[in-house]
């Protein structure tokens, strides 16, 4: 790869390497690439011109874009005054962004990124923190663990991994020491996770990241053990496959224009077709670029960003995945 992938929004807004507050688009240079596990590469990203990087909350992610696609990757440091942004990328498929990052990106290349963004930050009022990871889900958990060690927070770590691939295992062992519960393979994970969840002191907040099935088990177990939802935080790294959804009509409140959004077509695609520009990157409800304010009406939220309370407030939606109901939805556009 020789030149950065530029989007039109980027070309207008963010010159390379300028200090930008969290959230903007910018270009970073790949300073180093480290092989962490057979299919996991760490990319160390830094501004080409030596400008400072914004600090981030533990558990934040960076949205990285490549040719025609974008994905969110967790930052693995504690986030305080970072000298670089480090992400660990598991190679998932040839076609996806991870395949492109693994095969086509080398040291010195430039990447377009957005963020860091956080929807998975530590709750500083918690008395104890339970960090729960399975597989490559260790990446935001490592960030939490590093921050917990830096600030002296009481922490237990659960790390479920396979016998042959366990990214960051040595680092996690070194940091967590006696506070680590390791589970090797599916059987041990199934056995040990309920024990760990059942034994946490009152006032614990748990943070989990892993495959969808693992997160479902974690949420179900937590509920069965009487944990309120606020104590069961989670970060998805795979956006789930979404249903086509019901057709609906959307109104643009400022211009009064109305469009039909058929089943299987996203609101973002319809806005594109009609020449209404909305910034976007990931197109799967993860990166947070395509937020649009709601002027009126009901929405079906399908993103992985908004909390239950934010959904209830009905102030806005991510138009790449979320939809309207009937003909009620009016957008602040």
């Amino acid at each position, binding site marked *: 790869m020789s030149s950065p992938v530029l989007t039109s929004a980027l070309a207008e807004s963010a010159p390379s390497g300028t200090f930008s507050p969290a959230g903007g688009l910018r270009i970073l240079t790949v300073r180093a690439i480290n092989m962490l596990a057979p299919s996991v590469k760490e990319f160390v990203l830094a501004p080409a011109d030596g400008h400072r990087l914004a600090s981030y909350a533990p558990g934040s992610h960076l949205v990285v874009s490549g040719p025609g696609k974008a994905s969110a990757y967790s930052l693995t440091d504690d986030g305080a005054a970072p000298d670089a942004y480090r992400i660990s990328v598991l190679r998932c498929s040839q076609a996806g962004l991870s395949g492109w990052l693994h095969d086509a990106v080398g040291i010195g290349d430039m990447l377009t990124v957005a963020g860091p963004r956080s929807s998975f930050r530590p709750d500083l009022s918690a008395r104890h923190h339970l960090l729960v990871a399975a597989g490559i889900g260790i990446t935001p958990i490592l960030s939490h663990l590093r921050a917990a060690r830096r600030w002296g927070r009481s922490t237990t770590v659960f790390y479920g991994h396979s016998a042959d691939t366990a990214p960051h295992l040595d680092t996690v062992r070194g940091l967590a020491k006696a506070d680590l519960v390791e589970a090797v393979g599916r059987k041990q994970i199934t056995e040990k996770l309920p024990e760990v969840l059942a*034994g*946490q*002191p*009152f*006032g*614990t907040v748990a943070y989990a990241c892993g495959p969808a099935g693992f997160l479902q088990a974690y949420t179900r177990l937590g509920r069965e*053990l009487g944990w309120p939802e*606020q*104590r069961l935080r989670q970060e998805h790294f795979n956006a789930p496959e979404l249903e086509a959804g019901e057709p609906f009509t959307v109104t643009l409140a400022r211009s009064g224009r109305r469009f039909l959004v058929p089943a299987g077509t996203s609101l973002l695609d319809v806005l594109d077709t009609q020449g209404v520009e909305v910034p976007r990157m990931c197109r799967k409800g993860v990166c947070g670029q395509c937020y649009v304010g709601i002027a009126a009406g009901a929405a079906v939220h399908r993103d992985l960003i908004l909390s239950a309370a934010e959904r209830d407030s009905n102030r806005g939606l991510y138009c790449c995945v979320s939809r309207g109901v009937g003909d009620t939805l009016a957008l602040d556009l």
Partner: protein
Amino acid sequence: MPADHTVIPPATSLPRWTASPPELDLSGVRYSVVAIGSAAEAVADQWTGALTKTGKQVHILKFAGTVPAEEVTRRLEVHAQGQLNGWRLAMAGPEATVLSAAAAVRQVGGLHCELTLHATDLGTVRVYCPHCRSTTLTQSSPGAVIGCSGCGRELRIRPHLSRRLAGYLGSDIHAEELA
């Protein structure tokens, strides 16, 4: 300064106690039901009945009305620290004691949704003095003027309650006078 002390918009931090005790949230697995004073016992019995019927583990704690609020608070803080996640607290008693004990439970990580509180008596309030940071227990209510037990200032009890400090805000009625 207007003569009356009506707050606009209306003060939202004031507790909204209901006449009958609130229903318990049944999503927990272990419960402690706390009754402070004789008026709270019937409430605690009602809660305990609802919990045992649904097969929840219930621990009952009863305090005589003569036990000081500080003692109840200290005991509940220790009790909460010994619990595991999945625990809920349901507590009835005089407002000042209930708020003080609930603040201690929040301090050890308790969430709003894990606490069910009911006041059986509103006679005594705790008033926090931001000038000297002491708290005065008084038979009074928001709007009244009392003497601070710490610094002796004349404090007006403002219609503002801090859940964390378990006290109403008091402020020096002479604070804005020219020296």
